[in-house]
């Protein structure tokens, strides 16, 4: 697995590295920057939803908190942008910690409602706390990022910055997923009561992974703020939460890589819809996007509850496994596998590809 990871990662590095040379227009590069920002959101939600099995319909709130914390600190208080990004992440992580305790008393649909409520509350605060946020008229003058006199003033530079961080989050997430903690998260998804009875402090891990995903979203928000340099509440509303959900459902329910794929697919689809729908239906606006996403969500959840990409992969895998299993059970029935004690070394070699 680890070996395989390294190959996929290297390929991803190369592809992302050359993309700006293939798609050179400033429109394309800005779309790819948004894909990177969305990927951070999707990776975080993938850990929370795909691995730990905890639904969130309010993920945009963490994104908004990060963006506004960075925006306010830098534009109104002239804090160094990098320091502000760190402070924003700490603040957002703290919010996740505080809401995590009461939220995770809820399960399933109730948790979905709770996170939805959280998203709405944050959104309303962004609109209403005009002294801090500028309210509906927005917050201006968020500076660009620079480091050691090197300013990320061109989109292509910003592209590399965003994707470097997105890939860092990807690697950290892959490591978490493949560790004892990742296994604990999946066990919560599998059976909460069994996980507890094996010593997994389910509440602790749910809160920890909520904090991780909130910090990812916060950093994504900070990067967004310094990229667009102007903040207003609408991008941080319910629609984005649904979009992130769609990203995870399309690609990432059980794959962190899939989350990146989902972020790309969803962002591109969203861009395409924005361009074509008004041409086809005069007077049609943003509502149509959310209708399309709603339909995707429904169809995927009904037919492929593990996500679109992994659902397809699973179908293939299951088909192969069933073939293999049929052979094995035939052998097992001959050899009485339950009472017989198969050699351990047979399994031990398996750790190499683990």
């Amino acid at each position: 697995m680890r070996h395989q990871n390294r190959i996929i990662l290297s390929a991803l590095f190369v592809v992302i590295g050359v993309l700006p040379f293939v798609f050179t227009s400033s429109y394309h590069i800005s779309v790819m920057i948004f894909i990177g920002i969305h990927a951070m959101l999707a990776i975080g939600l993938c850990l929370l939803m795909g691995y730990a099995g905890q639904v969130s319909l309010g993920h945009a709130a963490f994104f908004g908190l990060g963006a506004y914390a960075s925006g306010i600190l830098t534009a109104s208080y002239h804090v160094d942008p990098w320091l502000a990004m760190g402070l924003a992440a700490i603040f957002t992580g703290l919010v996740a910690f505080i809401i995590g305790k009461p939220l995770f008393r809820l399960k399933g649909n109730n948790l979905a409602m709770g996170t939805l409520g959280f998203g709405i509350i944050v959104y309303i605060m962004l609109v209403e706390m005009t002294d801090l946020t500028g309210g509906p008229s927005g917050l201006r003058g968020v500076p660009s990022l620079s480091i050691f006199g090197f300013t990320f003033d061109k989109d292509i530079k910003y592209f590399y910055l965003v994707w470097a961080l997105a890939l860092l989050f990807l690697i950290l997430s892959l490591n978490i997923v493949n560790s004892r903690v990742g296994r604990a998260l999946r066990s919560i998804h599998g059976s909460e009561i069994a996980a507890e009875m094996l010593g997994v402090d389910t509440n602790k891990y749910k809160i920890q992974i909520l904090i991780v995903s909130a910090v990812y979203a916060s950093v994504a928000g900070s990067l967004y703020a310094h990229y667009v340099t102007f903040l207003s509440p609408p991008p941080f509303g319910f629609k984005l939460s649904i979009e992130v959900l769609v990203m995870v459902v399309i690609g990432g329910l059980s794959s962190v890589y899939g989350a990146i794929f989902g972020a790309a697919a969803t962002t591109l689809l969203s861009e395409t819809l924005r361009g074509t729908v008004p041409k086809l239906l005069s007077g049609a606006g943003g509502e149509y996007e959310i209708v399309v996403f709603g339909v995707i969500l429904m169809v995927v959840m009904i037919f492929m509850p593990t996500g679109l990409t992994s659902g397809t992969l699973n179908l293939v895998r299951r088909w192969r496994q069933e073939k293999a299993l049929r052979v094995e059970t035939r052998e097992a029935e001959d050899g009485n596998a339950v009472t017989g004690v198969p050699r351990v070394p047979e399994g031990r070699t398996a750790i190499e590809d683990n």
Partner: protein
Amino acid sequence: MAVSTTDMDRETEAGSALLDARSLRKDFGGIVAVDSFSFSVRPGQIVAIIGPNGAGKTTVFNLVTGVHPLTAGEIHFGGQRIDALKPYQIAEKGISRTFQNLQIFGNMTVVENVMVGRHSRSKVGILSGALSLPSSRSEEKRIYYAAMEMLDMVGLVSRAKQPASALPFGSQRLLELARALANEPKLLLLDEPAAGLASQETRNLERLIYRIRDGGVSILLVEHDMELVMGIADWVFVLDYGKLIAAGTPRDIQANEKVIAAYLGDETD
């Protein structure tokens, strides 16, 4: 005969019990699922709780493992009070269980299921995991080998890499057992482990239970298969409507009229 002395030991030496449950009571709304039930398990014993369906046996397991809070009573384990602890803390103290309704992690492979069982015996946290520190990787290896050993014990090594959900029912029961053992419990609670097993599988299970006990693990068993219970239990508690109606050696219980009336007569199979 040994019966009476064992009986007296239970009265006078409650302090030496590994698990000591005193006057347990559990109300669910109006119904009293468990009613002033006291029992104990001593080190190295196989103790059975039997009783008709709905007698409260699974509820007793849920009380001991902290899944449900007690309405009244006390539970001591290894001399410490555990009835206010969370399930994961009770697991850390050395109590493992299997479930009447299987609780396999269907989203994982067979060996990963057992690896979760090593959770409280390992310690890598989210930071060292995220950074994939050497400590994390070497611990993962140890967890893996320990899990494979457990699979070896129940005879599932050849299926280690398969999705757990692909195992047949009987093997899933064994998987739950391996997973529970991976926690290195001092006390193992088995909730109807033989339910749904073929007779050959039940005989294997019986041998396995003896092996586990001989490895120093005490066992609390809930089971409907009377042949199994009467064959392996050192001591039997009989529950009916949440109340203790009899306790004793299998031989006593088989001769007890109240038990025959409430339980054996009730289950006319």
